[in-house]
C-alpha cells in the first residue's frame, strides 16, 4: 500500500500487485466498515431478545462455551439463523438496489419500485397455494423465474427508443398493480389459515427463517457477492455511458446482462426465504452515498448500509413484539421506507423547481 501522488480530491488508498490493482476512498472504506460493525452489533443485540430473554454475556457464553443445552438450541438453533438472515439479506438487498440504481441512473430505480418484488411474490404465492409446497428450492426458483419474467416484461414495455428512468418506474408500478391484484385474488380465495400464513409471509418476515432454507440461501448469497465484486468495475464504466465503457474495454451488453441477473438474483433469494422486504434496496444505496460522499452508488457501502438497516429493523420488530405483538420486519421497512421515499420526492421537487412558496 502506498500513497498516490495524484490528488483525487479525497483521501484514498491504492493497492497494486500482480493479481489486483485498485484504489478506494478512505472515507468509503471506513464508513462501510463501521456500518458492517453496526449491523453485526445490532444482530448480536437481537439475539438477546425474544420470549426467553438473555443477556449478551449469556449469548456469548452459549455460542462459544461449547455447552449444548436448552439455551444453545434457542440461540444457535432458532435465533442465530434469523440474525444472520437480517445481516445477509440486508446486504444482498443493498447490492441489488445499487446495481439497479446504477443501471437506470435513477435514485428511484430500486427493484421493488420497478416491480420485480411483485413478480417474485406472485410466483411464490402461486407455488404455495396452487402447487401446495413450501420447499425452499421450489420457492426460490419460482421467485427467480417470477422476478426475471417481470423484469423482462417491464424492460420491454418501457423500451421506446431507449430506456428512460421514470418511464420504467411507472411501467413497473403498472405491472406491479396488476400482479398485486392477482395476489389479492389468490389470497382471498385461499383457506383462512393458508391466507393468514401467506399474508404474514407476504408482508416480508424473517422471523420464521430456520437453518434449512438459510444454508442454500447463504451459498447463493456467496455466489452473488462474488459476481458483484467481479462486475463492480464494469458497472463503474457503464455509468460513464456505453461508448466510454467500450473504449475502456467493457462489453456493455454482456456486462449489463450480468448485472441484471445478479440484481434480480438478490431479490429472488431474499423473496424466497423471507417474502418481499421493500425499500431496503431503495434507501440503502442513497443513504450510503450521502454518508460516504461518493460520486455514484457504491456496492460495498450499499451492502453495509442495507445490512445495518435490516438488522436495525429486525431489532425494532423484536422490541415491538416484546411490547405489543409480533410484526413482520417487512412492514417496518415499508413504513420507514415509504416515509423516506416521500421525503426524497419532496426534496427532489424542491431542488428541481426551487423552494416552496
Amino acid at each position: 500500500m502506498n500513497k498516490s501522488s495524484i490528488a483525487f480530491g479525497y483521501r484514498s488508498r491504492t493497492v497494486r500487485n500482480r493479481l489486483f490493482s485498485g484504489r478506494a476512498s478512505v472515507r468509503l472504506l471506513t464508513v462501510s466498515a463501521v456500518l458492517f460493525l453496526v449491523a453485526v452489533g445490532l444482530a448480536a443485540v437481537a439475539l438477546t431478545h425474544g420470549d426467553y430473554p438473555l443477556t449478551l454475556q449469556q449469548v456469548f457464553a452459549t455460542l462459544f462455551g461449547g455447552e449444548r443445552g436448552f439455551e444453545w438450541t434457542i440461540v444457535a438453533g432458532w435465533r442465530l439463523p434469523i440474525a444472520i438472515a437480517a445481516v445477509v439479506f440486508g446486504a444482498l438487498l443493498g447490492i441489488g438496489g445499487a446495481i439497479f440504481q446504477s443501471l437506470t441512473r435513477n435514485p428511484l430505480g430500486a427493484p421493488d419500485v420497478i416491480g420485480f418484488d411483485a413478480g417474485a411474490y406472485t410466483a411464490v404465492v402461486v407455488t404455495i397455494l396452487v402447487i401446495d409446497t413450501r420447499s425452499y428450492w421450489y420457492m426460490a426458483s419460482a421467485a427467480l423465474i417470477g422476478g426475471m419474467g417481470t423484469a423482462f416484461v417491464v424492460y420491454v414495455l418501457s423500451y421506446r427508443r431507449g430506456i428512460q428512468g421514470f418511464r420504467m418506474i411507472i411501467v413497473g408500478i403498472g405491472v406491479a398493480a396488476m400482479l398485486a391484484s392477482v395476489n389479492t385474488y389468490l389470497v382471498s380465495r385461499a383457506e383462512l389459515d393458508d391466507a393468514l400464513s401467506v399474508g404474514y409471509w407476504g408482508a416480508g418476515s424473517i422471523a420464521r427463517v430456520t437453518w434449512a432454507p438459510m444454508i442454500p440461501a447463504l451459498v447463493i448469497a456467496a455466489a452473488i457477492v462474488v459476481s458483484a465484486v467481479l462486475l463492480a468495475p464494469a458497472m463503474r464504466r457503464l455509468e460513464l455511458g456505453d461508448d466510454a465503457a467500450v473504449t475502456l474495454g467493457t462489453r456493455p451488453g454482456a456486462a449489463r446482462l450480468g448485472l441484471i441477473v445478479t440484481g434480480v438474483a438478490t431479490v429472488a433469494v431474499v423473496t424466497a426465504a423471507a417474502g418481499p422486504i421493500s425499500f431496503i434496496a431503495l434507501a440503502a444505496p442513497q443513504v450510503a452515498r450521502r454518508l460516504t460522499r461518493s460520486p455514484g452508488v457504491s456496492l460495498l457501502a450499499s451492502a453495509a448500509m442495507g445490512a445495518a438497516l435490516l438488522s436495525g429493523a429486525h431489532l425494532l420488530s423484536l422490541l415491538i413484539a416484546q411490547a405489543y405483538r409480533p410484526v413482520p420486519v417487512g412492514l417496518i421497512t415499508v413504513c420507514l421506507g415509504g416515509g423516506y421515499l416521500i421525503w426524497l420526492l419532496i426534496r427532489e421537487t424542491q431542488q428541481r423547481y426551487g423552494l416552496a412558496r
Partner: protein
Amino acid sequence: MPPTSPPQPLVKGAPVAVPSLYGRRAAGLLVILAALGITGLLSVSFGANPLPPVRAWEVLWSRDGSEASHIVWTVRMPRTLLGVLVGAAFGVSGALLQALTRNPLADTEILGVNAGAGFAVTIGVGFFGLTSIHGYLWFAFVGGAAAMVLVYLIGSAGRAAASPAVLVLAGVALTVMLNGFSTFLTLIDEETFRALRSWKIGAIAGIGLDETVAVLPFLLLGLLIAVLLAGPLNSIALGDDLAASLGTKVGRTRVLGILAVTLLAGGATALTGGIGFVGLMVPHIVRWFTGPDQRWIILYSALAAPALVLAADVIGRVIVRPGEIEVGIVTAVVGAPVLIALVRRRTASGL
C-alpha cells in the same frame, strides 16, 4: 356559474371544427348511453343463475313474484345500482383529480386517496370495533382527505407543478406505506382480518341496499360540487395566474375540489374498499369525444364510468363461474395497461 351555452370559437377562421366537435359529442353521448344500458341489462341478467336478457327486461317492468323477479329485484338490482353509483364516484373523482393536479396519470387509487380511506376504515374496524358503514364512513372521509392533502403538498412542494411521474410516485409511496400499516392491523387481529379480507379488494357484491342508501347523499353532494366546479376548472387549466386574472377563485376551487374528491372517493371506498384505475381510464376515453372542456368531461365521465364498472363486474361474474372475480381486480388488470400505454406516449400530457 359559467353560462351553459357552448363555448364560442376563439378564432374566427376555424368554425369548421365546432360542428364536428358537436357531432362527436352527440355520437359519444349515444355510445356511452348505449353502453350503460347494455351493461346494466347484462348486469341484471348474468350471475350464478343466468337469465335471458329478454326475461330480465320483462321482470324489470313487471314485478310478478316469480323466482326470476326475486333474483333480479333483491340481488342484482341493488348490485347494479351500487355499481352505477361507485362507478360515477370513482370516474368523476378521477376526472377532478386530473384537472386539479393537471396530471394525466391521476386516479384516486394511484394517488393514494383510496389507501388513505381504507387505512382509516381499518383503524375504525380494528380499534373501535365499528361494524356498520354509518360509523366507518366518517373514518373513510377523514382518511381520504388526509391522503389527498398530503399528496397535494408533495406535488406543490416546488414552485412549479410537480411532474406527473413524481406525483404518481408520491401516491404509490403513500399507498404502500398506508397499506403496510393496514396489513399490520389486520395481521395482529384475526377478527379484523376476516372482516376486511374481501372488503379490501373492491367488491360490489353482497353490499346491502341500506348501506348504499346511507352513502348516497354524500356521493350526490360530491357529484353536485364536481359539476359546479367544472367551469372554474376550465380556467385553472390555463394556469393559476391566468385563472385568477379571469376571476376564478383558485384557492376556493382547489379546496372544494379536494372536498368533492374526498366525498366521492371516500364514500365509494367505504362501500367497496376501493376500485382502482376507473378514474384513470374513463376521463381519457371520454376526452376523445368531448375535447378538453371540463364540463363535458365530468358529465360524460359520470355516465361512462358506471358502464365500465358494470362491464368489469359482468366479466368478473362470467369468466370464473360459479365463482366471481371482484370488480377491483378486473379493473386493475384492465387499467394497468392503460397506465403503461399513457406513460409510453411521447408526451404524457393529453390535457
